[in-house]
C-alpha cells in the first residue's frame, strides 16, 4: 500500500523501476543458482558414473564457461523465455511449472476465498467493537492463526481428519487411483474433471483440497483480519464518518457505505499480497500433504540442486509478487479518485 503511494510519480518512472527490480531479481536468482553447493551434474549422472560421463554432462550444461558468460547466456535465455530443462524431470522447466502452478493456484484460491471471506468481516467487527470482547476474541483467534507453525497444524489436522475421522481425503490432489485418468487441458484439476465430466474425480479433488486450503485460509485470514481492523480503525476516526452519521445514516450504513468503501482498495491490496504469500505457506503445507504443486516442486528441486528449476521458480515468485504490487498500484489509480 505504501509502495503504491510512493509509485504514483508517473508511469514511465514506474515502468523503469520495475525493470530495474526485475534486473536485480535476475542477478539474485543467478547468484543463488550458481553458488548452490549441490552438484547438478552428479544428480544427473548418478552416484557410480565414471568421470568421462560426468565431464560430458558438465560441458553440456555450459558450466565450464566463465561466470559472466553464463550470466549473459542466462539473460538471453530469460529474454527468449527459455528457462532450460529441469535436471530432475528432464522436461522444460516452464512446462513443469505450467503443471505445478495450477495446483498451487487452485489451493491458494480456495484458501484466499476462505481467508478473505473470514478475515474481512472479522476485521470490521473487531474494529467496530474496538476493545470490547468481540475484539479480544478476534484478536486472539487471528494471532493464533498468525502464530501457528502451519506444517505442524497440517500434520495434526491430517492425523485427525484423515487418519482418525476419515472426513477428508488424505495427501495428494486426489485419491491415488484417479491419477492420470483425467485428460489434462488446463491443469486445474477441478476444471479438467468437470470438462471431462468425471464427477467422482471432481469430488475427490475437492475432498483433498479442503483441509490444506482451510489451514492456509485460516493463517491468511489472520493477516487479513489484522489489517482490516487497523484500516477500519483509521477510517472510523475520520471526520467524514462523523459527517455520515450527522446525515442520519445508521452505524451499519456508515460503516459499510462510507468507511468500508474507503478501505476497499487497501483491502484488495492486502488480499493480493496475502494471496502472494500463500505461495510461502504452500511450500510447507504441500510438503505435509504431498500436494504436487509449485511449493513442492521448488523444495524438491532445491534439495537436489536443480539449478534451472530453482532459478526459474524464484524468478517466477518474484515476478508474481512484482505483478501483484503493480496490480495493487493500478487498483489504486482506478479506484481512488484522488490519484487519478
Amino acid at each position: 500500500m505504501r509502495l503504491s503511494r510512493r509509485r504514483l510519480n508517473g508511469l514511465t518512472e514506474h515502468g523503469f523501476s520495475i525493470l530495474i527490480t526485475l534486473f536485480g531479481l535476475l542477478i539474485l536468482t543467478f547468484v543463488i543458482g550458481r553458488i548452490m553447493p549441490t552438484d547438478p551434474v552428479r544428480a544427473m549422472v548418478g552416484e557410480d558414473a565414471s568421470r568421462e560421463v560426468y565431464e560430458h554432462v558438465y560441458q553440456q550444461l555450459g558450466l565450464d564457461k566463465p561466470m559472466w558468460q553464463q550470466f549473459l547466456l542466462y539473460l538471453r535465455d530469460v529474454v527468449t523465455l527459455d528457462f532450460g530443462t529441469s535436471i530432475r524431470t528432464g522436461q522444460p522447466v516452464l512446462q513443469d511449472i505450467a503443471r505445478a502452478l495450477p495446483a498451487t493456484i487452485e489451493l491458494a484460491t480456495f484458501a484466499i476465498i476462505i481467508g478473505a471471506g473470514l478475515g474481512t468481516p472479522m476485521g470490521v467487527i473487531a474494529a467496530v467493537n474496538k476493545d470490547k470482547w468481540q475484539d479480544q476474541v478476534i484478536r486472539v483467534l487471528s494471532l493464533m492463526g498468525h502464530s501457528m507453525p502451519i506444517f505442524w497444524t497440517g500434520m495434526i489436522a491430517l492425523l485427525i481428519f484423515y487418519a482418525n475421522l476419515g472426513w477428508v481425503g488424505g495427501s495428494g490432489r486426489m485419491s491415488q487411483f484417479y491419477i492420470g485418468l483425467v485428460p489434462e487441458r488446463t491443469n486445474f484439476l477441478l476444471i479438467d474433471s468437470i470438462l471431462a465430466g468425471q464427477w467422482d474425480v471432481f469430488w475427490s479433488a475437492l475432498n483433498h483440497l479442503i483441509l490444506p486450503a482451510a489451514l492456509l485460509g485460516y493463517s491468511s485470514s489472520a493477516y487479513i483480519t489484522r489489517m482490516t481492523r487497523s484500516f477500519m480503525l483509521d477510517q472510523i476516526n475520520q471526520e467524514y464518518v462523523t459527517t455520515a452519521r450527522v446525515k442520519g445514516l445508521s452505524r451499519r450504513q456508515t460503516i459499510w457505505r462510507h468507511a468500508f468503501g474507503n478501505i476497499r482498495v487497501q483491502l484488495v491490496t492486502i488480499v493480493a499480497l496475502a494471496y502472494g504469500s500463500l505461495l510461502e505457506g504452500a511450500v510447507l503445507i504441500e510438503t505435509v500433504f504431498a500436494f504436487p504443486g509449485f511449493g513442492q516442486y521448488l523444495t524438491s528441486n532445491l534439495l537436489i540442486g536443480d539449478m534451472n528449476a530453482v532459478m526459474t521458480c524464484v524468478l517466477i515468485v518474484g515476478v508474481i509478487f512484482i505483478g501483484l504490487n503493480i496490480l495493487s498500484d493500478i487498483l489504486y489509480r482506478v479506484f481512488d479518485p484522488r490519484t487519478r
Partner: protein
Amino acid sequence: MTQETSAALPRRTMPQGLIAARNIVVFLTRSPTSLFGLVVLGLLLILALFAPLIATHDPYMQDLQNTLHPPSSDYLFGTDELGRDIFSRLVHGSRITLTIIFLVTIVVGPLGLIFGTVAGYFGGKVDTVLMRITDIFLSFPSLILSLAFVAALGPSLNNAIIAIALTAWPPIARLARAETMTFRQADYISAARLQGASPARIIWRSIVPMCLPSVLIRLTLNMATVILTAAGLGFLGLGAQPPLPEWGAMIATGRRYMIDSWWLVTFPGLAILSVSLAFNLLGDGLRDALDPKQMNRR
C-alpha cells in the same frame, strides 16, 4: 511568568527512558493477552539461561534401549527415536530459538533502521537506489527467499540465521523510511538543520528516536515470523542440523513416528506455537502501549 500549565506536573527524578520502560511494562501487564506474552517470553528466557539446571537429561544423550518412550515421570515429555529426552531437548532448544532471535534482531534492527532512515531523510537518488534494493528483496515471500539463500549457502543453523536476517531487514527498512518521510518535513527537523546539525547528527539524534517505537513493535511482531521461518527451515531439513534440538527439526524427525508417538511432534509444536504467539501478543500490546499516534499527540 504569566502562564500556567493546566495540570500539575510531577517532578522527575528518574531518566525519561527508564520511566517510559516501566510505564510500558506496567501497561502491558494490565492486559491479559500481553501479560501472557510477557510471561511466556520470560519463561523462555529462564529456560534458556538455566537450561542445564532445568533439563532432566542430557539432550544429546542417546539411549537406544529406551526409544519412543511415552511421557512418564522419568521422561516428562517422553523420548524420541534415539531415546533422547524430549523435555530436555525442548529446554535446550530454547537456547537455539533465543540465539536465532537475538542474532536476527541485532542484524535486522540496525540494518533496517540505517537503510530506512538514510533513504527517507535524503530522498532523491539515495532513496531510489536503496529502495530498489529493498524492493528486490521484498518481491519474495520471506520463506521462499530464505529457502533460496539456505540452498545457496548450504543448510546449517548459521546459514539459516543469515538467510533469515537477509530477508527480514527490508520490511524494517521500509517502515523506518516511511516513518522518516513523515518526520522529515517536521519543523523540529528544520530547526535542527537551522542550528547547523549535520545530516548524520539529525538522523541519529532526531530521526532514529522517532522511528524506534514503531521499529521495535515491528521487530517484535517480526520475531514471530522469524521463529516460524526458522522452524519451517528446520522442518524442511534446511535449518539447524541434527543433533541440535531445534524445535522445527524435532518436528521434522518426529513426524516419521507421529502416528504412534504423538509426543514427538506435539510438544515441539506447542513450544513453537506459544513462543510465536507470545511475540505476536506482546507486539500487539506494545503497539497499543507505544502507539505512535498517541505519542505524537499534542
